[in-house]
C-alpha cells in the first residue's frame, strides 16, 4: 500500500532520470562497440608493438574499476584545459572501459572465422580494409551477439555510477528523492525495479536480435 502511495505521488520524478539513463546507456554502448571495433582493427592490422599496446590497454581497463576511470576523466580533464560536461566525461569513461571488454569479445569471435575465408578474400583481391569491412566485421558482430548483449546490460548497470559525478540519471534521482522525503528505502526499491525493467527490455531486444540473425552456436566452438 505504501509503495502504491509512493509511486502515485513520486512516479513522475523518475521519468527524466529514466530517460537520461536510457540515452546514456544507448549512446555509450554504440560508442563502446565502435571503439571495440577500432581496437580490433588495430589488433588485426598491427605489428608486435601495436598489439602489445592494445593488450596493455585492455588489461589496464579490465583490472581497474570503472569508478577510477570516471574520476580520472571528470577530475583530470579540466586540469589539462578540457572542460566537458559531466555526462560526456562519464560517457567517455564508460566507452573506454567497455570498449576494452568488447574488443576482447570481438577477438574471440575473430578466432571462430574460418581461415579459408581470408584466403578467399585475398584471391578476390580485397584489400586489408576491404577484408575487414566485408568479411570480418559482419561475422564478428553476429558471432559475438550474445556476449555483446551481456556487455550492454553491464554497461547499463555501470551508468548508475555516473550519479557519483552528479549526472541527473536514475540513481541520482533516487538519492535526491531520499534526501528530500526522508524515506529510507522506497525510492531505491522503485529504482531497482525500474533498472530490472530496463534489463528485461534489453534481454528481450537481445533475444529478438539473435532470432533476427538466425544465430546458431558454432560446431567447433571452444
Amino acid at each position, binding site marked *: 500500500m505504501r509503495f502504491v502511495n509512493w509511486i502515485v505521488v513520486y512516479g513522475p520524478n523518475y521519468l527524466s532520470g529514466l530517460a537520461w539513463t536510457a540515452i546514456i546507456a544507448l549512446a555509450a554502448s554504440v560508442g563502446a562497440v565502435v571503439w571495440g571495433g577500432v581496437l580490433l582493427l588495430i589488433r588485426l592490422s598491427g605489428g608486435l608493438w601495436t598489439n602489445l599496446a592494445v593488450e596493455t590497454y585492455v*588489461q*589496464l581497463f*579490465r*583490472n*581497474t*574499476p*570503472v*569508478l*577510477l576511470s570516471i*574520476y*580520472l576523466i571528470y*577530475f*583530470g580533464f579540466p*586540469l589539462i584545459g578540457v572542460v566537458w560536461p559531466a555526462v560526456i566525461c562519464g560517457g567517455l569513461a564508460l566507452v573506454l572501459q567497455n570498449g576494452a571488454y568488447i574488443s576482447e569479445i570481438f577477438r574471440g569471435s575473430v578466432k571462430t572465422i574460418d581461415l579459408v575465408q581470408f584466403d578467399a578474400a585475398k584471391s578476390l583481391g580485397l584489400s586489408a580494409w576491404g577484408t575487414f569491412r566485408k568479411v570480418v566485421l559482419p561475422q564478428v558482430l553476429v558471432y559475438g551477439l550474445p556476449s555483446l548483449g551481456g556487455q550492454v546490460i553491464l554497461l*547499463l*548497470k*555501470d*551508468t*548508475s*555510477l555516473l*550519479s*557519483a559525478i552528479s549526472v541527473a540519471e536514475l*540513481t541520482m534521482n*533516487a*538519492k535526491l528523492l*531520499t534526501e528530500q522525503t526522508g524515506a*529510507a*528505502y522506497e525510492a*531505491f*526499491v522503485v*529504482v*531497482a525495479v525500474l*533498472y*530490472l525493467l530496463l*534489463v528485461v527490455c534489453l534481454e528481450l531486444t537481445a533475444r529478438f536480435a539473435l532470432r533476427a540473425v538466425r544465430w546458431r552456436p558454432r560446431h567447433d566452438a571452444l
Partner: protein
Amino acid sequence: MLQLLLIGACYTLGLAVAGIAFGTVLGLLLTPLSFVRCRPLRALYHVYVFFTRGTPLLVLALLIFYGLPALNFSQGPYVAGTIVLTIYSSAFFAEVFRGGVLAIQRTHLESGRSLGLPPLAFLRRIIAPLALRYALPPYVNVCVMMVKASSILSIISVWELTLAAREIIERTLLVFTVLGIAAAFYFLMCFGVDRLGRLAERYLMRRGFVGEHA
C-alpha cells in the same frame, strides 16, 4: 600520501575478502535451492538471482545503506558495505556453482550412482570435486569482480582505496598521480587474485582433472 593509499588498499582487500568469503558461504547455501524438486523454491532462487544481478551494485548498496538503520541495524558503513558485497556476490557465486554442477557429464553421475553411495558421500566424492574444477575459472572471475566492486562502496562513504584517492584529489588536485597509483594498486590486487586462481587450477589439475582438455 602513498601510505594513505596503501592503507586504503588494505581496507579494499579486507572488504573484498570479507565479501567473497561470506558470499561464497551464502552462494553454497543457495545453489542447492536451484536443484530441489519443489518448483516454488526454484522460482525463489531464480527471482533472487535475477533481482540481485539485475540491479546495479550502487542501487543495492544505497538500498541497504539507507534501509538498514530503518530496521534498527545501524552498525556503520563497513558492516553495511560487507553485507552489500556479500549479497551481491552470493548471487554470482550461486550461479557459478550451479554452472559447475550442471557441467558435470551425465556419464560421471550415472557411474557414480551405480556405486550405490549414500547421498552425502555422493556429494562429497563425486559432485564436489568435479563441480569445483569446472567452477574455478568463473569463480576467480567473480572474485576479481568483487575487488573492483568494492570501489563502488566508496560512494556510500566506506573508506577504502577509491575514497582515499578521492579525498587526496580534493585536497591536492594531483589527479593523474593519485589515480595512477590507485589504479596500480587495483591492478596488482586483481592480477594477484587472477594468478592465485591459476595456481589453484594447476594444483587441482595435478590432483586429478576431468574433462576434455586434450
